[in-house]
């Protein structure tokens, strides 16, 4: 149903998005790590309105119809990119959440209206249909584009490569086909995003389904076989332009965070681990005199630890790798946050000058050795993982699990899922919210989406 005026949650520019009303609800994709018990993954609704009597509680829940989905980076059907001038469709609603099952390859369309606290599943696209129409499987990340819904996928139906991107019609949710016209040397896939002002897309590399689904493979890691490239694409012509090899020791090139301002031609990507010294790093790509380049801008060293306290996989190293598996960039492009799944740290950098990030502070949740506590819950396990920053940059929602098969390697005792909140003062100071803590029993929340958009849901065509 077309609206009479643009959806009020569409903002022409990131600055206007930051000035919008605060989120009163959040949606959390919740993973059930033990499908053998017949339990389903779920989409949970979290009350994030401090004025509400049910603040910081789960107030709604819809379960996926199948089992074993492992819901990953879900997204909206439409967002601020609908205002882009060359293909405007401003009168659609931000209404449906598209939740991909990274294990099952099923794609769930969830309607958040008329009652946002009571979402309903309205359509399920089966793995077979995605494979038949695109050749892909293991859908991972959803982004609402100016002209279609884009979905990244890790590989093909047999568990091999290549991984890539496919498109969905943003009205009917029909699977349209694979996005790439010419993929060049790109084989591994994971995340993708774009610079709408420059007609380029960036993609990153994890591994094919066969390389990841049994857990992290130490042999592949040591041999440098997991992803260590970054790829640049022509967004309009769907062609590969350039690949950067970050070095085989830089394993697992994951989350991509381009600047939200479409005139700023730079962005950040995290590398989970260096096989040389277990450090993590953050790299910045940027446009320089018409050409694009990439450089390392942040190094995060491993923390030495007593082997007795380490899980079997890490004992020999006598250290905890930071494992930066997630980064997030505030909507105003001022602060970059790095989630260290290994040490539990949430690190903040001032990236006003993207070439020279300044470390400005850290808080800690859980961690392999530290089990850093929450005031409301005591010692935590799992570690800081998925981050979602509110549009105004004042709140960061945090969850503590990565991917079922990989959680085990670092937290063999099993992860007890939770959602926490970090408040960010106008001067940037971070504090753990002592009242906001949502524990889950036998389930692991992963990605969150905030009502009306958040810092990783929308892209903009106007500065």
């Amino acid at each position, binding site marked *: 149903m*077309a609206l009479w005026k643009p959806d009020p949650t569409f903002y022409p520019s990131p600055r206007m998005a930051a000035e919008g009303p605060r989120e009163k609800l959040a949606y959390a994709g919740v993973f059930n790590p033990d499908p053998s018990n017949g339990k389903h993954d779920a989409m949970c609704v979290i009350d994030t309105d401090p004025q509400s009597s049910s603040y910081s509680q789960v107030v709604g829940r819809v379960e996926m119809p199948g089992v074993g989905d492992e819901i990953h980076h879900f997204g909206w059907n439409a967002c601020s990119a609908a205002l882009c001038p*060359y293909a405007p469709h401003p009168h659609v609603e931000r209404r449906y959440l598209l939740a991909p099952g990274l294990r099952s390859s099923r794609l769930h369309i969830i309607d958040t209206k008329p009652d946002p606290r009571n979402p309903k599943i309205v359509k399920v696209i089966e793995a077979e249909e995605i494979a038949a129409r695109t050749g892909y499987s293991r859908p991972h990340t959803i982004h609402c584009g100016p002209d279609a819904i884009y979905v990244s996928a890790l590989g093909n139906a047999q568990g091999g490569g290549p991984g890539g991107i496919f498109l969905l019609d943003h009205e009917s949710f029909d699977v349209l086909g694979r996005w790439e016209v010419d993929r060049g040397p790109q084989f591994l896939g994971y995340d993708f995003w774009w610079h709408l002002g420059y*007609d380029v897309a960036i993609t990153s590399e994890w591994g094919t389904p066969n390389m990841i689904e049994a857990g992290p493979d130490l042999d592949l890691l040591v041999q440098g076989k997991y992803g260590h490239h970054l790829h640049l694409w022509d967004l309009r012509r769907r062609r590969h332009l350039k690949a950067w090899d970050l070095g085989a020791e830089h394993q697992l090139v994951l989350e991509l965070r381009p600047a939200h301002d479409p005139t700023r031609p730079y962005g950040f990507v995290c590398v989970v681990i260096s096989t040389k010294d277990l450090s993590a790093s953050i790299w910045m790509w940027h446009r320089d005199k018409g050409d694009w380049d990439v450089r390392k801008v942040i190094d995060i060293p491993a923390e030495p630890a007593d082997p007795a306290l380490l899980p079997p996989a890490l004992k020999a190293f006598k250290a905890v790798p930071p494992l930066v598996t997630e980064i997030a960039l505030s909507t105003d492009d001022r602060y970059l946050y790095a989630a260290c799944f290994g040490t539990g740290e949430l690190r903040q950098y001032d990236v006003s000058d993207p070439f020279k990030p300044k470390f400005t502070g850290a808080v800690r949740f859980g961690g392999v050795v530290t089990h850093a506590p929450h005031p409301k819950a005591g010692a935590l396990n799992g570690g800081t993982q998925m981050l979602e920053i509110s549009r105004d940059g004042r709140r960061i929602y945090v969850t503590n699990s990565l991917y079922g098969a990989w959680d085990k390697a670092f937290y063999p005792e099993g992860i007890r899922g939770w959602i926490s909140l970090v408040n960010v003062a106008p001067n940037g100071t971070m504090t753990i919210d002592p009242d906001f803590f949502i524990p889950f029993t036998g389930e692991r929340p992963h990605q969150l989406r905030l009502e009306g958009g958040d810092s990783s849901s929308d892209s903009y065509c*106007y500065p």
Partner: protein
Amino acid sequence: MTGAWPWLAVAFLGAYHGIDPSMGWLFAVALGLQERRRGKVFEALLPIAAGHLVSVGLAVALIAGAMASGLWILRPLGATALIAFGLFRLWRPQAHPRWVAMRVNARDLAVWSFLMASAHGAGLMLFPILMDMPAGAAGMPAMHHHHMPTIAAHGHLGLIQAIAVVLVHTGAMLLVMGSVAIAVYQWIGLQILRSAWINLDTIWAVALIAAGLLSLII
């Protein structure tokens, strides 16, 4: 006023396209903002107007050619096309050309504008006006007489008249589009989109259907 109204209607439709953000001014503003240069807004306007002109020009030529055949079926046929197109726009309001992105040259802009105007049925809407336009050069507003036979009765649309229709339409479009683009770029800001971008597509679709019905009745 029987002589002047078709020209006013032609200009009004041009102005309507000029004010519609999806037909050009918003693209010009976006390109200006991306380069942080007001001159870029002006540079973008002319190719956009040129693409619109070609689209409307082709439609007018088609209609004029059909009129020259003098067949009675022309009116019901054109009316049906208007109604069918309007219904399509209501059924698939989000159907739009997916062709360019933000890095565009003048040729890209012109082709984009041509596609947007054509997909919108910008020229088609002129059909009922052309049918009721006073015939021949005498129909020009400055020289109009009362009780002139209309085109439909008389049978053909003069070349000069056809060119004038296209120019008046596109000129009005360019004037309004340029004024809105500069006002938004310079003073108003894009916040206006959030409140003022009403669903012109639905209005337009209803107008197409209404025009089709009217040209059947009259």
